[in-house]
């Protein structure tokens, strides 16, 4: 330990030297402790009898060594359906949805006329600011099987939101329409960091547009793509509430009932707090596993990963 004292600085020295920075850190840390970590004590509820009137540490343990609610959930057909729907919708989002902003960003990047580019960008961002409640009601006016504007114009009766498979497609496409533009921002930022010299060098070597995109642009934003992919994989079991809830209708509940809606119906409307905490905890644990796994994989393939 002697060596350390001579070579490094003790924490006191750091504190003395950078105390203003540490002071700056105090508030965020307090925030995290109070609003993010302290409430975690209530995760205990997942292992306790259903009771919100006492603090969970005073409540008796649930049956089966505290695992009553987990066992119950996994024996519940409705939960398993919700789990399946969540995974299906998120996977579709991941596979179809995540390449879209990349393609869009590259297309925008290739636009030569700056004013047009800026206008396009702004128009693309706009849907992000609409809530799903509004989008769902617009969707209905446009896509209703008989009264919808599109079916009226085409003289058809295509059930865009009336069968489960069609509904899934509409759900994914609407998601892309709403978020694609917004998600290009981060890629566009990454694109600006690519040195113009690389493009010039490629040009000298006789590369055309597509070659330049393939050999310069894409490698330039590769690490950004990987980071975002990892974060998306971390959400594979996470579920939005307003999107499936507002877009749903009784004909397609078999596809639209996700874990978030299950938790809402059982927990908030049905007062089953322990069960819904257990389901939430399961969701989080799986998400963390996915996050770790994909990060590890990324590193394995020579990328930096998230940490």
């Amino acid at each position, binding site marked *: 330990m002697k060596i350390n004292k001579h070579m490094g600085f003790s924490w006191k020295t750091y504190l003395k030297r950078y105390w203003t920075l540490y002071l700056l850190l105090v508030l965020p840390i307090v925030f995290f402790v109070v609003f993010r970590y302290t409430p975690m004590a209530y995760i205990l509820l997942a292992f306790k009898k259903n009771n919100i*009137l006492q603090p969970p540490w005073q409540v008796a343990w649930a049956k089966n060594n505290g695992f009553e609610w987990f066992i119950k959930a996994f024996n519940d057909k409705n939960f398993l359906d919700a789990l399946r729907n969540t995974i299906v919708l998120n996977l579709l989002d991941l596979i179809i949805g995540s390449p879209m902003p990349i393609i869009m960003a590259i297309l925008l990047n290739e636009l030569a006329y700056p004013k047009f580019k800026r206008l396009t960008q702004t128009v693309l961002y706009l849907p992000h600011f609409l809530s799903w409640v509004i989008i769902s009601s617009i969707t209905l006016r446009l896509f209703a099987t008989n009264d919808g504007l599109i079916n009226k114009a085409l003289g058809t009766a295509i059930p865009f939101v009336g069968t489960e498979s069609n509904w899934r497609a509409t759900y994914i496409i609407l998601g892309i329409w709403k978020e694609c533009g917004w998600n290009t921002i981060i890629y566009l930022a990454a694109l600006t960091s690519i040195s113009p010299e690389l493009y010039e060098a490629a040009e000298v070597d006789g590369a055309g547009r597509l070659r330049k995109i393939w050999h310069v642009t894409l490698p330039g934003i590769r690490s950004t793509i990987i980071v975002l992919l990892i974060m998306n994989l971390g959400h594979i079991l996470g579920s939005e509430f307003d999107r499936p809830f507002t877009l*749903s209708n009784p004909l397609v509940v078999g596809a639209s009932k996700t874990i978030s809606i299950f938790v809402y119906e059982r927990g908030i409307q049905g007062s089953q707090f322990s069960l819904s905490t257990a389901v939430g905890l399961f969701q989080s644990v799986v998400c963390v596993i996915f996050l770790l796994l994909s990060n590890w994989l990324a590193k394995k393939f020579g990328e930096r990963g998230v940490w």
Partner: protein
Amino acid sequence: MKRILALVLIVAMIATLGVTSAFAADDGFVDGKFTETRHITVEIFNRNNDGGTDPTNNVWTDYLKKAMLDRYNVEVEYVSVGRWTEVDDVNNLLAIGEAPDVCYTYSGTTILNYASMGGVTDLAPYIEEYGDELGDLKALIGADNLYYDKDPATGTLYMLQGAMPNNGRITTFIRQDWLTKLGLGLPTTRQEFHDALVAFRDNAETLLGADADKMVPYTTSTDIGWRNDLMSISFVPNDITDEELYVYGYDDRHMLYPNYKEGIRELNAWYNEGLVWKDFALYTDSTEEDNMMKAGYVGAFMHNWDYPWRNGEDSIAANLVRNVGPDAMYVPIDCFENDAGITRKFLGDVVGSDRKSFIPSTCDEPLAALLYLNFISNADVIKYLQTGLEGTNYVMAEGGAYQILPATGEWVKNSGNNIDYTMTCNGLYLGDATDASTALSYPGISADLVIQANNYSKTNGRIAKHFNCGAIEAENDVGTSLTSKRDALLTKAVTAAPEAFDAEFDAGMADYLASGGQAIIDERIEKLAEVYGYNFVAK
């Protein structure tokens, strides 16, 4: 000697303690009034209505506060919770130990859920001891009904039922002007109703001209259990027993009643004949449908018995006249007869099927809270809250009826007839003047029409017998998930092709039962045997 003296002193001390604590048990409640001012908090819905007042502080609460202080020496403070988030809000308040001392909700299951967590005061001992003080409550809901929810096994009582003086539910409405135009009379049977719908469909050009393609002979919504109830239950055998009504009576949509499926099959046939609004399944709120009615495209529908007249100037009836003409109007009919040839309605009881009040266990003044419920059930208090200030809130009409006026400013009522304040009573309760006043509640609508619609909603009404079997645990488990399952199953069955109807309905029903429906039926059968010794055999 000293020892004896000590003993005497000790005995005296204990005796004094006993006497004083006996006085304490008396709660300072002498001759129906507290000797010292008590303080309670009371839940009140907040509807955030345009032009409304603060629900916790307005002319009505001023009146209630003053009256409670005068009568019982109890200070009342109101706590508002969102009308449409009432259960969530009360959840939160209970969890942090700040629930109002007097709470009310429509959901009995929620109350029993709180009770199972130890969050609700058992009212049985209080009613036992202070029953004599609850005269007004007894007069409103009936003395026996105080114990409506008393658990048959444990004797605990966690809630008090409120009254719904007018228990009319649903009436069928049809466009009188269309029938007249086509030379048809008001339908009196299901067949005639169907024929009228066919006539509407086939004469769309005559009735709607350029808008012929917008013709909707009959609308329903995704809540088919409500919006097609009278037609669906006309297929339920008339001799269904009270026990069957109980066992299959989990929700008020009657879907589990025997032969209900045939009613849905009939609706499926209508749907496939093009008589029903094609896209009803996609719309989960009522705006679109209301707009079609207001625009005059809809021939007939089933809904709450006063539906076309709600919302004054923005009512369906008022809009219809504006958009189509003075003759355009919906009139009530009663035409769905069952196997015994009568137009059966299954109704909730006047007491037991509406709001329920409870007192959380965090309440320090359960007696004062109970007395509030008694006070708010007083006929004069209810009358004042429902009518208000003469000239501002109402004028007296012929025959002693109250014509309610839409007041604004400080005398505005945040809820219709102040039903949020008359916590134990949902609906006009004005003694002999009730019916005549109800008829005058809809400006611009003839009193006869209103009375007829209300009468039809109750004609041949059958009220299921109340079996007090205590809490059904299986009902706690399902939350609102069965409601959405029910709507999904009925909606899919109705919109299926006729040949796919059976498969769709049966699959949906199997899923409904597997998701908790069967467990509820089984537990009800079990409880019926346990409490009433009744051996229920499913047919």
